[in-house]
Structure formats: C-alpha cells, structure tokens
C-alpha cells in the first residue's frame, strides 16, 4: 500500500511530522470508509466487518502514515480497498472449492444494502460490478477528486474518468429500466 503512495525520498531531509491522533482520524473518517466498503460489497454486514478490519490494520500501520503524502481518508480508503480485495480473493477461492456461488448470490439479492435509496437505484447498483460501484463510491459518495480516486484505484486519472462515466451511464440505464418495470 505504501508503494501506491510513493516511497519516501532518501534525498530530501524529512522534517518532523505532527501526526493527528488516531482516534480523531478514525472518528472523522469512519463514515467515509464504511460507505466506500458498502458500495464495494453491497452487503451491510460485510461492510461492517471489513470496516473493522480496516481500522485494526490502520492502527497497526499508523506509525507509517505520512500526512504530507496523502490525506487520512485516502490512506484509509487504500487500506480498505486492500482488505476488500483480500476478501474477494478468499471468496473466489472458496467459491471455486465449494461451488456454492449461486446460493451466495441469491443471499445477497435478498437483503437491501443501502437504506434511504430508492428501490430502482438500489437494484441498479446491484447490477453494477464492484469496480463500477467502487468508482462511483469514491467520486460521488465520498466526493474525492479525480486524482485521489485514481490513486486509490491504481489507475490513471483519464482511466478513472472514463470508468466513472461508463458506470454512471450504465447505472442510469439500469435505474430507468427498473423504474419502468
């Protein structure tokens, strides 16, 4: 993860850094991380679990956080993304081993994952891939700028814009089709 933030230059003379307290940072950005994971996983319980893991890991790595290189929310979102990807990998392995993908999918479909959203929007979100939901989460829900979102995703700013545009178009189509239905 630190590689995504770039390595500390060995030529610049680093100054002493005042790092905020972890508790304050966690309190301030908990909703951000939760919403991000919720959009990514479309599962409230899973987002809850992964958010906990995110902050556990963040506390362990807190000594490495350099506020000069990235904001706390960016840093936390990157950790959250890593944790989510680890979860998806584990799930992928488990599904291939146990071949229970269909049952798991239907379980997801039953429960609404976001309160307050219209049924058509929620249905539309469910039909997007995690990658599409992710870019929407970062740019729209969390209101991160293009550069920061691209950095978290590990892609270029242009690719991020393109991905967002496609995701929104697709979501709009899905919402419209569900609304008509």
């Amino acid at each position: 993860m630190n590689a995504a933030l770039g390595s500390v230059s060995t030529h610049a003379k680093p100054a002493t850094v005042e790092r905020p307290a972890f508790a304050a940072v966690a309190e301030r950005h908990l909703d951000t991380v939760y919403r991000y994971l919720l959009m990514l996983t479309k599962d409230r319980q899973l987002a809850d679990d992964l958010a906990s893991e995110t902050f556990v890991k963040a506390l362990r790595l807190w000594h490495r956080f350099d506020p000069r290189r990235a904001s706390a929310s960016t840093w936390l979102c990157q950790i959250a993304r890593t944790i989510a990807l680890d979860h998806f990998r584990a799930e992928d392995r488990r599904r291939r081993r146990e071949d229970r993908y269909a049952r798991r999918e239907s379980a997801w479909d039953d429960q609404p994952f976001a309160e307050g959203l219209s049924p058509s929007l929620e249905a539309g979100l469910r039909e997007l891939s995690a990658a599409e939901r992710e870019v929407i989460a970062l740019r729209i829900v969390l209101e991160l700028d293009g550069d920061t979102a691209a950095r978290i995703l590990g892609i270029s700013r242009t690719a991020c814009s393109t991905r967002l545009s496609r995701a929104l178009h697709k979501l709009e189509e899905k919402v419209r089709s569900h609304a008509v239905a």
Partner: protein
Amino acid sequence: MPSRDAIDERFDEIVRELRTLPGAPDSLRERVRELAAQEPPVAAREPGRWRAWLTFRSVAWTLGSAATGFVAIALAYGVVTSGGGGGDDDDSGMAAAGQTTTMAQLSPMAPPAARPPATTFDTEQAAAEDRARVAVGSATAGREAVTLPPGQRLAHHTATMRLRVSDVDELSRATREAMRVARRLGGFVASVNYAKPKGDEGDASLTLRVPTAKIQQAIAQLSDLGVIVSQRIEITDVQNRVNDTSDRILRLRRTIRRIELRLRQDVSEDERFRLQLQLEQARANLRRLTEQRASTVRRARLATIALALTTREDEEKVAPPPGRVERAARNAATVLAKELAAIVWVLIVLSPFLLLAAAAAVAGRARRRRVDERLLEQA
C-alpha cells in the same frame, strides 16, 4: 469554468440520492472507538525516515566495508609478496651493486651423459618447490655475461638477452651469427624477426632453442655479438612434477595389471563390464600421463633463448629495479585490478538474472492488478 472533476448534470438526481447513503452503524462506531483508545502515545517522528536512514546507511556501510576489505587484502598481498625471497630480490641486490654473478663456488653442471635420465625416480627432495624460479640477475650494460648455477634436477631454462650493436651492418652480421651459434651447438632457430632498418636504426629478435647442456656456451658466444644491455635467466624446476607423473604412471600400470588378472578369472557379466570400463579408463590415463611426461622432458632438454639485437643508443640506461614500496604498490594494484575484474564479472553474470527478477516482479504486479480487476468485475 467547469472543474475537470465536475459530474455531468444529467446525473444530478442519482448523485443527490447516492450522497444520502447511510453512515456507519452505531455498533461499528463503538467498536472503532474502543479500538482507537488502544493507540499508545507516540512522539511525533519522521514517518519512514528510520527506514530510509537505515537503508541508506546500511548500503553505505556495506559498500564502504567491502571496499575497505578489498583494499586491505590487496595491500596485505602487496606487502607480503614484495619482500619475499624471490628472484626479484636477487635481481635488485646484484644489479644495484653492479656485480656479475659468477657462481664460481658451485660445481659445474653435470654433463648430460653422466646424469641419469630425469624420467626415473630422482627422490632427492631439495628445498626447491616444483616451480621454483631462480632468476640469476640482470647485468648492466657492458658487463660480463651471467653464468648459470649447476643443475642436477630436470628444469626448464629460459634466457632473455638484449644486445646493442654499432650499426645496421653489424646488426645483420650479428643476426646471422646468432643463428649459426644455435645450429652449431645442436639446436635450432625457432623464430627470427628482422625489422628492416630505417636509416641508422634497426632491431632484430630471435628465439633460439639449444640443448640445455649447452646453454652456458650459447650465452657466452651470443654475448660476444654486441654490448649487453640486459640479461635475465630463469630456471624452472620440473623434477618434482616429472617424479609425480612417474609415480602415477607406476600406479596406473599396477592397476592395469591387477584388472587384467581379474578379467582372466571367472567373473560375472556385470563385473566384467565394470572392469573393462576401468581398464579402458586406466589405459587412457596412462597414455595421457606418458605423453605429458615425455613433453616435459623434451622441453627440459632444450633451453630457450630470446635474443634481441638493437642499434639504438637509448637502451644504455637500465631502469633501476623497483624498491620494496613500489613493488608492494604494484602487487597491490594488480590484486585490486583482479578484484575489480572479478566484481565486474560477477555483475555481468548476475545482471541477466537481476533483470529477469525485476521483469518477473513487474509482471507479477501487473498480473496481480489484472486479477484484482477481474475480481472486482465479477463481484
């Protein structure tokens, strides 16, 4: 001017609705608060700086220590080898004193007829090593020729002489006479290089092979051809090597006899096959060692004289032999050069592997990213 990050207005309704997404539930908030309360107080410090410091310092220390070690080894080698009892010391002592080195106190070299063939088992264990070199001095210009110590062991004799002649006519005459000397003494001319004189300057170089027993005579006769500018004689003892080879030949013959006797007996097919292989191997080794010994003896029977003739005047001065410090520095430099060559060689050999490792790491990262993208597409 619209920001690059602005979302298309057609999605305003979706955006507005998405931003009403609920925040973290209270249970999660409580858990995170409890977790955050565990944070130990940490003094403000440069994040990651200790890593950078450690890495930089470690690298600097490692490189510095390695370089110091290499230089220390080279210097130690240079000091140890510069003052040893070798021919060089003999050279420097004698040349500085301007003395000739007639070994009058030593008995003359035994004629070849009186000396048993060196191929047999001369068990005299002299202190000399198998390749002990005895450089018996370089004479300064105009001095008498150096004579050789008597040899009772099989040895390769190599003489290097440089003579100055008065003019190009004399150069031509001396070249012809040198060839006659070699032939007269039962030897031959291995090579001649006579450069066409330019004006009053000319050079010639010859490689002569003469019977070892006649080398003293050859040197004496060649010395008369001009003024000696420099001269060096090396004797490389090969007696031990020949003795060792002879011992090995004896052992191989015994082994061959033993295997042949065994083959005449009643043995199983597998055993016979194995013995045949051993016998072939032993015979091949015997042939090789026999040829090797014969070659060594042949070389020892003929001495090599490298003779250089010149008309040039500026060869008068012979450079003084290097002192101990200079020798130490030269030897140390030689070792350092070899160490550097070894390092370069290792880097050259390792660089493809390092490149492959780097390429594999990059490919691994790219693959991991593709896998993650696929997971997100499917999730």
